[in-house]
């Protein structure tokens, strides 16, 4: 059998025919990057290619002067004999699937993706292919996401109740992607002002600069020391929880927005007052639907519940195999 078009190496997923890597975790000469989360975009490579809408986010990760080249969605770039194009993955702003075509064979490496509506990024487009590389972060049948609008309404109600009791609402979420999606989902008028943690604010400005309408926010770091947060919503990364940074809020009510909050044990264990099920990863029904729509005969899986998914797909007549990667090592992603 000939060499597979894309294969795992110790530096990342490698396409030998085009001599480039996808989301490498060590420095390489040519890297195609699916999106700006830290486990996919790592610094040190000689040349990066990524979807144009995500370039400013990637510069924050890779450095302002990183050798970064933007590709518009759907436009083909040739790596030698290999034709490469990027297509929306619906994960975060500028996230892309990588379509790789060589000798009439088509592979798609999806990176992270989701199928639920998200006004902060272009929606996932199913691409016909022979081999589909999928994430398996939530690949168990209990992971089916409730409608985002219903979850947003729950958050809003909770904020409203807290504000009435004069308690600050602190919502923890992943700083890139999830935080902006939450902001976009909030209904106007809100029960009070919205504040952002220092790691959330610049990324949110990048979204605004990309033309994504988001509600007005203030930075906690720019507020005076005696700021009254009684009616406020504060969006912060989970790492801020339990730190001295939290002391400025009086009797804060805390919540966590993540796909992991689907499981009651996780909700209770994390010690937040509330858990909200909202994820930028594909859920179980979305994953199966996507595989059907791509028409792929072969499915390769990365991070998460790969073993179960592989066995399940195998029983349904697909050729399925796990790929060893280092993705998903970022805490609280989900």
């Amino acid at each position, binding site marked *: 059998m000939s060499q597979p078009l894309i294969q795992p190496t110790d530096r990342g997923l490698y396409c030998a025919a085009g001599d480039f890597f996808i989301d490498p975790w060590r420095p390489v000469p040519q890297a195609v990057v699916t999106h700006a989360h830290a486990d996919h975009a790592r610094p040190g490579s000689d040349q990066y290619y990524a979807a144009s809408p995500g370039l400013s986010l990637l510069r924050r990760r890779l450095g302002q002067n990183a050798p970064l080249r933007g590709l518009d969605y759907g436009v083909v770039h040739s790596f030698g004999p290999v034709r490469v194009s990027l297509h929306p993955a619906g994960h975060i702003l500028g996230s892309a699937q990588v379509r790789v075509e060589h000798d009439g064979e088509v592979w798609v490496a999806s990176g992270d993706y989701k199928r639920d509506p998200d006004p902060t990024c272009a929606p996932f487009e199913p691409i016909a292919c022979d081999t589909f590389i999928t994430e398996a972060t939530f690949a*168990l*049948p*209990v*992971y*089916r996401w409730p409608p985002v609008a219903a979850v947003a309404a729950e958050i809003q109600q909770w904020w409203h109740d807290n504000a009435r009791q004069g308690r600050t609402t602190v919502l923890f979420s992943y700083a890139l992607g999830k935080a902006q999606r939450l902001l976009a989902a909030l209904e106007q008028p809100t029960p009070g002002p919205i504040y952002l943690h220092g790691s959330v604010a610049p990324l949110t400005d990048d979204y605004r600069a990309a033309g994504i309408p988001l509600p007005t926010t203030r930075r906690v770091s720019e507020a005076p020391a005696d700021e009254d947060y009684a009616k406020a919503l504060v969006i912060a990364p989970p790492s801020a929880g339990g730190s001295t940074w939290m002391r400025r809020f009086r009797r804060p009510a805390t919540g966590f927005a993540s796909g992991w909050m*689907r*499981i*009651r*044990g*996780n909700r*209770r*264990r994390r*010690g937040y*007052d*509330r858990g909200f099920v909202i994820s930028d990863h594909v859920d179980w029904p979305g994953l199966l639907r996507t595989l059907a729509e791509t028409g792929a005969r072969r499915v390769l899986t990365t991070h998460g*519940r790969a073993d*179960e998914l592989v*066995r*399940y797909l195998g*029983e349904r007549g697909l050729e399925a195999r796990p790929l060893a990667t280092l993705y998903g090592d970022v805490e609280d992603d989900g």
Partner: protein
Amino acid sequence: MQAFARLYRQLDEQRGTNAKVDAMADFFARVEPDDGAWAVYFLSGRRLKRLIGPVRLREWLARCSGLPEWLVEETHQHVGDLAETIALMLETTADRDRHDPRPLARWVEEEILALREIDEHQQYQRVTAAWQALDESGRFVYNKLLTGALRVGVSQTLVQRALARATGQPQPVIAHRLMGQWQPSGDFFKSLFEARSADEDASRPYPFFLAHPLEGDPADTLGPVHDWQLEWKWDGIRAQLIRRQGQTWLWSRGEALIAETFPEIVEAASQLPDDTVVDGEILAWDEAVLPFAELQRRLGRKRVGPKLRREVPVRLLAYDLLEQGGEDIRERPLGARRQTLEALMADVQAPLMCSPLIHARQWSELADRRAEARERRVEGVMLKRRDSAYGTGRPRGIWWKWKVAPLTLDAILLYAQPGHGRRANLYTDYSFAVPDGDTLVPIAKAYSGLDDAEIRRLDHWIRRHTRERFGPVRSVEPVQVFELAFEGIAPSSRHKSGVALRFPRIKRWREDLGPDDADTLEQIRALLP
């Protein structure tokens, strides 16, 4: 059902106890009596006899979800709770505006108790139809009721507080009414709202009053020693002996009737006058107290034959008197209750006896007595304020248990398994081993003692240092050493190590130690009495 599922959600989401009490009191004040009775039944931790086991439920879930059984099982492992797995795995097809309007009592009677009367095929149809008829939270609660306890994180005390508020009755009265056996009927629920009546159920025990563990030296915090009644802390089982209307009931702290396990105590109780309630400890006793392992041979047995009665004789050591001549005397000071108890027990023969008092003129003398605990086969000493009433729950500052410091050993983590509930899909159930020559021999399992951050860190380590997987269990590289505390050690033929530890738990993660520093089996055997 919807109202009860909503209450469940509120209780699950609220962390403060006041908010939980508010939610329950509000519910009890509005609910229909039939539904209220079942709600009290489940919230206070009671459960229906399980009609359908987890294996069959998983099989049915596989059938109606169209997923393979192995995947259902893996998913159950991941979630850590079958009721929740079913609730989350199925799609909610029910029209949100047209949900099943039946209240809790009708759900229990028509959809759970009714399953007793029908065959397995019909059961399958009823249960899966119920799954379809409910939304996620309703399905979860229905499954919880179907499979066992509700476990929503409210204590008996909180339920009592909420009922006291809703009914306007004092909490101790409510607590008493919820003890023992009762039928979850509308009449029962209505009776909770009534003022105390003369003939409350004769078998009903009083809630046990519990002691708080004492850390540190009592001399620093508890004032003069003579304010305190001092007793041994026995290592047996707590029991309440009730004589009323010429009959005897013997209750354990788990609210089980245990008369058949200890027939000689029930026989001896006829020496006590009618309308007497005694609180005490059952111990295996042959001239002196025997190890708990001996008593254990009698526990859980429905029938105790003459042979076992001969081999493991038992006694009830009375330490408090709760009712005398039909009068509830729990509010009297402990000193007065003790005097009455001693007078009552003066002519009573074994196996009933008074638990002896410890006399100490100074705290240092009590410390000396406590130091004898292991030799005397007791767990330590009890300190009870002489002026204290027999209360409910476990308040601080009134009764203390001052246990002898535990024994410890250093052992190596060998296996790990995910926990349940709050600890689902985290490796929290650990097995430890110690070296015996060249091999490692399992010595104990322990589930508690690490804080959340340590648990998460250890979970992370376990996932990266797994050697083998056996179903949910992983074996790990035997390098992490933990200090285990335990209360006692006894020979055991059931364990490969030949010893059984009592109440093992993790005291510390000894990251400063390597596997060569662990205690050996030989050293541990030397601890055997």
